[in-house]
């Protein structure tokens, strides 16, 4: 196996961001708008602001996947990209890194913002574990959507998976509310990582990683790239 073609991988990531720039700019504007709404410190603006922020997170990640992977296949740009001096693994890494960073920026902003809001305000600190589990689900849902977009060519399936994995957050939250060691400590001030919480969180992270690695393995064994 040849070594990675790092300069071209960087080019491809920059290219994908450039193609995505206009949409990304729109999301950044919406993100700033929602932060301003949060900054108004009224109950209604707080509600709308946090909702908008989550919409921005989901929309950014889904549209980044769609622009960089699904559209590229649909518009027959893939053959052009694959005719450049790269191996399938280079292509996979470029897509993976580009998409993960696009996802990670709003994800981390919201994650850190949420944790800061819980820890620095009168909100009970027990919410920390619960919030981490919710963010774990979002991460997992994103990795599922990204993996499917890499591996499955059907646009319909991709949209289905994107929506389904995000919508699954509801049953997931219902499930969490059934676990006493997680739900019971939400209103307390102590941050308690029960064994159930640790198992769920670890599963989310490990499955996310396995999905990405597995997708890379599948991708490198594909027999057609056009």
């Amino acid at each position, binding site marked *: 196996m040849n070594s990675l073609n790092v300069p071209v991988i960087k080019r491809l990531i920059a290219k994908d961001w450039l193609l995505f*720039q*206009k949409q*990304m*700019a*729109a999301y*950044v*504007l919406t993100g*700033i708008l929602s*932060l*301003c709404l*949060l*900054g*108004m*410190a009224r109950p209604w603006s707080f509600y709308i602001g946090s909702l908008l922020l989550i919409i921005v997170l989901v929309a950014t990640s889904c549209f980044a996947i769609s622009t960089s992977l699904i559209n590229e296949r649909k518009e027959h740009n893939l053959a052009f990209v694959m005719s450049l001096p790269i191996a399938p693994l280079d292509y996979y890494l470029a897509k993976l890194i580009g998409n993960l960073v696009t996802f990670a920026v709003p994800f981390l902003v919201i994650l850190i913002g949420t944790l800061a809001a819980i820890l*620095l*305000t009168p909100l009970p600190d027990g919410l920390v574990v619960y919030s981490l589990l919710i963010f774990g689900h979002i991460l997992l849902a994103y990795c599922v959507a990204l993996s499917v977009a890499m591996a499955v060519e059907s646009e319909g399936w991709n949209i289905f998976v994107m929506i389904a994995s995000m919508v699954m957050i509801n049953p997931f939250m219902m499930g969490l509310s059934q676990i006493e060691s997680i739900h019971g400590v939400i209103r307390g001030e102590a941050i308690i990582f029960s064994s159930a919480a640790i198992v769920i969180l670890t599963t989310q992270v490990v499955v996310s990683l396995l999905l990405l690695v597995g997708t890379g393995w599948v991708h490198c064994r594909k027999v057609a790239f056009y």
Partner: protein
Amino acid sequence: MAIERLHYLDNLRALAMLAGVLFHAALAYSPLMQPFWPLADRSTSAVADVFAWFLHFFRMPLFFMIAGYFSAMLIEQRGMGGMFANRVQRVLLPFVVLWLPVILSLTWSTEWAAANVEHPSAVLKIVREWSTMADPPQLPPGTSHLWFLYYLMWFYILQWALGSVFATRKRLQSQLPLWTWLIAPLLLVPSLLSVTAPHPAPESFLPQFWAIGFFGFFFALGTTLRRQPQLLDALRRWSPGLAISSMLLYIAWLYGLRRLPPDPGDLAAPWQLAVLGAFISLWMTLHLWIAGQRFLNVQHPWLRYLAAGSYWTYLVHLPVLFVIQYGLMDQAFGWLTKLAISVAATLAICFFSYEVLVRRTQLRRWLG
């Protein structure tokens, strides 16, 4: 790559920085700020108010306008990526590095003053009260006076985002007719209407609509004037008129402030004050811009030194001023003497530290 030097902008920036030190120092002797400002002194004078709030209307707008102008220039010369690389180094990094020391030193000096000063301000009394509580209320951390840098970063991002979404190559070739400049301040009214008068410093980490609308307008004006300097042409000969009108409006604003004094519970300014404030802000800022182009496009060694040290002075002046004015709190001098001492000492310390820590070291390239 050589960057063109625009002396009048460097000089304007230096003067706005001096105005900043004066403004912050004068707040201690402002009757209006007695309930809100930790440095509030026993000796006050309405003159301090008259003086401080006039500066308040245009010194930050002028900074933002200059920053907008320079950012458009950087994009012209180095592209969007180059602009961001430069701004991260010159704006974001100083903010990140200095934020904690600034907050810690302000907290430290305030806690010291609360414990030791014999004639504490209203705010210090509250701090003193809190220090005796078992579980004192905690204020969320803010950006302090570094909010200017913080908002600049938001404006750079907004500049990129708006430019990407609404990409256009159209440029007005003509000047803007006089009447557009005369009614343009109305655009600032909604922002000023949604905060108290005089408008506060937006120190929260969460961006504020009004601050983005108000200061962002000046930033955008600066970028626009870089690309289309002729827009101002119709206004140039009316520039003295702008200054005189602003001063007259300011008298009306002071009168209005007396009739409609601010209350800590206020969420919004009376519309009369918001409208007057909008006109004073834009007209005075434009006047200074035009006057600066006409009279300040000169190179004096001392002006150049002042300009070079102004960024550093801006960054560190507030913690220094806090220590000095807390120290002066129990002194029996008159307000003017205290003002003179605090301004002189603050500037002396800032420029001395600039000379020792920045100008002669590697930091010069970063903060010079």
